């Protein structure tokens, strides 16, 4: 019985070379040139002008955004402020939400744009600025970045406001109007003609009617009425009733009561 042989231990796998981090510095292939030096000077100027440049851009954008808002709100007024009351309640609620939402968004957006353009006075501490940003120049660039961020937000908010305004205008244009409340007119036909107007009162003796197309009231005895009708308009009924046609004022065609009598006396030569 031979000596048991230990299984040979597998040889350790050779360690893979760890990828080394790239060196911090690399030898440039060439030295600086006049162009690179000029670029550096221009870049410094560009960096130093970041804040003033961003604020100048924000100022122009603020003016432009305000013009857009003015244009949109002017479109809302095309139909007149009283026209909004003509639409039905549901559409009026939608119109109110859109218009008020647009107005609030426009105010917020213009506020942001104004803040970006004008900034706000604030107390600063040099040590804090240096600690937080690394230097004053870096702080100015950071301020310019903040201005850009505010301006970008202002543009988005005002764009939303414009969309709301446009939606409000479209809603206003296409919203169905509330059905008009037709006046309740009464047409009383008698043997002497027709009286048409608004019924003021009526009792067992007479109707009191305010003439539709003339001032004054007339009383029509109940016994004189051959027919009483509720009509939407006085003109056709009166025209048919007395056969005078539709070109003359209805008050001249409506029988011989009250104002009608006065009108006829005025027209008859003495």
């Amino acid at each position, binding site marked *: 019985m031979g000596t048991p042989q230990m299984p040979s231990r597998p040889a350790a796998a050779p360690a893979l070379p760890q990828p080394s981090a790239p060196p911090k510095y690399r030898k440039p292939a060439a030295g600086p040139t006049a162009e690179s030096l000029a670029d550096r000077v221009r870049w410094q100027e560009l960096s130093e002008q*970041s804040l003033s440049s961003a604020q100048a851009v924000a100022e122009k954008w603020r003016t432009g955004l305000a013009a857009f808002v003015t244009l949109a709100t002017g479109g809302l007024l095309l139909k007149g402020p009283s026209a909004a009351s003509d639409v039905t309640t549901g559409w009026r609620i939608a119109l109110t939400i859109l218009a008020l939402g647009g107005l609030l968004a426009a105010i917020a957006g213009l506020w942001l744009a104004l803040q970006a353009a004008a900034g706000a006075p604030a107390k600063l501490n040099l040590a804090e600025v240096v600690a937080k*940003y*690394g230097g004053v120049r870096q702080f100015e660039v950071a301020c310019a970045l903040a201005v850009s961020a505010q301006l970008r937000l202002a543009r988005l908010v005002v764009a939303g406001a414009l969309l709301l305004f446009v939606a409000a205008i479209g809603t206003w244009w296409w919203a169905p109007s509330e059905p008009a409340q037709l006046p309740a007119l009464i047409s009383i036909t008698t043997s002497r003609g027709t009286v048409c107007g608004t019924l003021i009162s009526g009792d067992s003796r007479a109707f009191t009617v305010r003439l539709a197309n003339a001032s004054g009231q007339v009383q029509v005895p109940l016994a004189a009425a051959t027919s009483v009708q509720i009509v939407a308009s006085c003109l056709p009924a009166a025209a048919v009733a007395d056969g005078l046609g539709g070109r003359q004022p209805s008050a001249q065609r409506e029988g011989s009561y009250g104002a009608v009598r006065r009108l006829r006396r005025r027209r008859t030569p003495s």
Partner: protein
Amino acid sequence: MAADSSSGGSAIPGRPAGSQVVAYQAAAPNAYEWTEVAYEYLLDGKLAASIRTVGGISTATVTGTCPYCKDDVNFSEVLDAVTSESMGTLSRRTAQPIQADDGYVPLTVSCSCIRQHPGRPAGVSHGCGINFQVEVRRDA
């Protein structure tokens, strides 16, 4: 273009001694020699370059021994700027200098020492006149 490194009466040929008064380098301010020496100094630790990003703003800093006058270079450059170019008006654009794809940022560095150097032009208040190139990793 060869550098006129003998100006100023340096003790070592081609290298002015730090203790000696070094003349302002006007003959070859951009010579590649300064870039080579600066690279050696970076490897030796005599010169340090870094890019620090604080508050979203990157700043490159190069400090240490000047390859020419041996004074402190003390160079700093903000790498970010806010521009208002026509394409940038619709959104925020943070312009940054062109960066190599491999992560190295080339910097054109000028010595900003405040020691007097004979021959310094009127109106120039600092520096010994040389410029050199440094390439440093952004995440280093």
